[in-house]
């Protein structure tokens, strides 16, 4: 009897029986929505007519690879990440340094930023992967804190650990990813139980740093202008203002129910620059209106709910912190990207998870889902 009961117990705790199917379903729906939007952008655009199939197929194939990554990562016990957190962290830093070395990292067409490796024609963006590496490292460090709440010393250690990749990403320059990293640190510190007082001090210190960056022109003028375009549209640079104007017109003209699939003039006539990447939400806003936009927001809300739920269910502080970090990452990316499209956040190059066209962004998002699943599946063991 005991034996039988024991077997049932073990069986019930097999990780594979505890996949979070609900999370996967929401991610799948969001990915399909992304492909539908991508098709509408590429198929109707006179300039891009030749590429629509290529883009949709490529994005679909990337999502397929993403699904494999989910399976692969979920089948590993997430606690291994804790063991190798130091290596993962150092590898990310090495990649961020390597990408700045001329000849190794590739420069984007504008010649300003140097952000990715080009290996066999595939672009690999280390700053995207860095986000997950930082989450793993911080979760490992914070979960080892034995006091009820982190001491100031712990806090300084954590901030120092996060600051290295943050600065490296910032000087690429990749302001978008810097914002995401900052939000991840803050989110994880909150969940780790940091005192409000300490958080306030940290925030003030951060603001001072940003002020210094402006003063010392670490941030270049064109970046400042883009960042502040949403605050002062009249004096914004032509380029940024145009992008924002067309974005708002696209979303605003969608109305309550949208102008219909493939019926959006802003989308069809290619008015919105970078619409298939950073501004993909405009395609949803114009074609499917408030209802469609809210549906996408709902999907994100559901994914974040599952992520925070996984954080809460985990019996292990490392799992909780990792899930919380991932939730923070998705939340800030969604908020800053859609906020940018709607003109309430600065224009930064943050992709919208699962929707924006681009390999690294999609794969990292799926890898994060794989981590969440791994935590969820092993919540009893």
């Amino acid at each position, binding site marked *: 009897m005991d034996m039988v009961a024991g077997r049932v117990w073990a069986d019930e705790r097999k990780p594979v029986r505890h996949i979070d199917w609900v999370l996967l379903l929401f991610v799948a729906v969001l990915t399909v929505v992304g492909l539908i939007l991508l098709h509408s952008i590429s198929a109707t655009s*006179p*300039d891009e007519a030749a590429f629509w199939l290529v883009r949709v197929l490529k994005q679909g194939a990337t999502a397929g690879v993403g699904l494999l990554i989910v399976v692969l990562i979920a089948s590993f016990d997430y606690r291994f990440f804790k063991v190798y957190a130091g290596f993962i962290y150092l590898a990310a830093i090495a990649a961020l340094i390597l990408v700045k070395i001329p000849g190794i990292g590739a420069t984007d067409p504008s010649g300003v930023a140097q952000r990715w490796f080009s290996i066999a024609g595939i672009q690999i963006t280390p700053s995207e992967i860095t986000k997950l590496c930082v989450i793993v490292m911080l979760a490992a460090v914070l*979960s080892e804190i034995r006091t*009820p*709440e982190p001491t100031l010393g712990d806090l300084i250690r954590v901030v120092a650990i996060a600051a290295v990749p943050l600065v490296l990403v910032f000087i690429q320059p990749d302001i978008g990813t810097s914002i995401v990293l900052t939000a991840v640190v803050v*989110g994880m510190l*909150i*969940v*780790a*139980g940091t005192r409000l007082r300490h958080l306030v001090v940290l925030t003030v210190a951060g603001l001072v740093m940003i002020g210094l960056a402006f003063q010392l022109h670490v941030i270049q003028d064109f970046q400042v202008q883009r960042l502040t375009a949403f605050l002062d549209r009249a004096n914004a640079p*032509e380029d940024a203002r*145009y992008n924002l104007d*067309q974005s*708002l*017109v*696209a*979303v*605003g*003209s*969608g*109305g*309550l129910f949208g102008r219909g699939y493939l019926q959006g*003039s*802003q989308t069809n*006539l*290619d*008015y919105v620059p970078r619409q298939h990447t950073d501004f993909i939400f405009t395609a949803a*806003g114009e074609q499917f*209106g*408030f209802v469609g*936009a*809210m549906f996408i*927001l709902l999907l*994100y*809300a559901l994914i*974040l709910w599952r992520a*925070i739920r996984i*954080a*809460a269910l985990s019996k292990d*502080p490392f799992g*909780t912190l990792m899930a*919380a970090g991932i*939730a*923070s990452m998705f*939340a800030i990316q*969604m*908020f800053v990207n*859609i*906020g940018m499209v*709607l*003109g*309430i956040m600065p224009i930064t190059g943050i992709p919208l998870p699962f929707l924006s066209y681009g390999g690294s962004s999609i794969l990292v998002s799926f890898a994060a889902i794989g981590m969440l699943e791994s935590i969820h599946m092993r919540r009893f063991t």
Partner: protein
Amino acid sequence: MERASSRLKVLALLVVLMFVALSTRLWFLQVLATTQFQREARDNSVRFAYSEPLRGKIYDDRGRPLVENRESLEVRVNRDAMGSDAEAVVLRLAKLLRVPVRVLVERLQTNQYYSYQPIPVAEFVSPHVRDYIGEYQELFPGVEVVPTSVRQYPQGRLAAHILGYVGLIYANEYEKLKSKGYEQTDVIGRTGVEQVYEQYLRGTQGVQKFIVNSNGDTIRALGVRDPTAGDDLHLTIDLRMQRDAERQLADGLARIRGTPTSDRSALLKANAGTVIVMDAQTGAIKAMASSPSYDPRWLVTGLTKAQRTYLYKNPAAPAIDRAIQLPYVPGSTFKPITGLAALKEGFATMGGYYPCDATYTHPGDTSGTVFHNWTTANLGSMSLSNAIRISCDTVFDKFGSDFYFNYVQNQLNDTSLLLQNDLHQFGFGEPTGIDLPSEASGLVPDPAWAAQAKMADGTKLFPDGFVPGIDILTMIGSSYVNATPLQMAQAYGAIANGGHLCRPHVVDQIEAPDGSIVKQPEDRCGRTIPYSAAQLAYIRSALGSVVTSGTASCTFAGFPTSQVWVGGKTGTAERPPYQDTSWFVGMAGKSVNAPKYIVLAMVEQGGFGATGAAPIVRHVIEDLYHLPETHTGGCGGGDL
């Protein structure tokens, strides 16, 4: 970490605030302020500015230009936009352009174009005209002056049939081609290489996209795609040879026109003709002249009524390329080919002798049909070579009978059509595949054709079906068999080069504007004819003897055959009710074993081959080899 769940609630709260912020903003943009944005979306509009690519240029085999482009100020008229007072506009325009009103009206009165297609009516107008029309646009509704690029022909009307011309896209063409990106104002290649290589010559249109506001002011230039010029054609044509061929053809026609017909009842009309110079080893056309011709420059602005009548409603049909677009009865120039067929099938041998009687009757024929030689004398027995040299018909008539018997005996056998099969192997009865449009197939008469051939009044041409006379007449290239001059050149080329049927072609290679080669010269000599080297050499010697001591010996008297070997065959084809077609198909080169060129002349209503076409060939060969031009003449008729 005990407080993790309460801390997670803080995180969740922050996330909820994010959603509240986004939803509120969405509500504002999409519900409260949507009318304003919808208006802005409507006011957004895109304009496209197209820039036309330069059409590819056409060069001869040494890179000398045959067709180029030239900047022009073009006057275009959009008939739909002329308003109610179109007549007054045309009058004013005619006065301004200093062209007769009639000419303008002729160009505009056409149903080949849509009424809203701007039709070019004048080229190379002065900037003054442009400024005037621009200044008084209200006097010229529907009229615009645009800078454009038009075809220029530095060699004048040279090689008009080969080059072809370009013209404004017709309404029916536009319907078919608009999916390929053609515009209503595009020109398109018509006939010649301009038509066949349209896709290469055309180039890619440039596009500039502008975003304009409701006032039409440009807000922003979006994408730019610069136009890419079309690819350049490098022809096999040699400019000098082409000029010589055209001159010799024109001179020859003029000379023949002054001479009497064979029965001396009238003067020869010599209304049309062709000269072909082909590289016998490759099939490359070095020169190809067709007369009468026309000037491609007429078509740059569209034709006047007189030009259109001349080109299209004229019995002389100058638009037709005689070299490839009309089949002719080949006459005795067919004998080297049918002679080879007889050798192959064993009806003749290189050592055999055959009677050249005054008449020939098919054995067992009871209809009383008698085939006559060109002379009433009985010339005795002779070899196949001699039969070619003096062009004896009755020798070949007998071979025709042999082929017919073979057919009768093997009627259920696929290979029973030996003669027809042999001729098809030589490329007859099908287009050669030259890279020029509207090539004729010619005809190899066979039982299927005989079964349905009708006379002009609709009665059957052959009530008894496939009769021996068809094979007999085909053997001497008479009556029903016909071939384009180019098919003849191709077949003689195979005899000259040792058995390779090379597809004739006029484009050697195609070069992109950046200098890269789009289309390499290719080997077009993959087809072979099944004759032994000895058989082909035997026929080439016979062709040589035609020139030295045969039917063309008078015409080639004094020709330095020790310097340049020449062989060839005369042909005089009856073509009732017209005067005889005059042929000479020649080959020239270092020796009988290595003829380099096929040189062919054909003159419609030109009389005897020896006196009509052969002198033209002689002069063209003299030009090819820079030999002093001799005066030919005084050679009598009677030779076939």
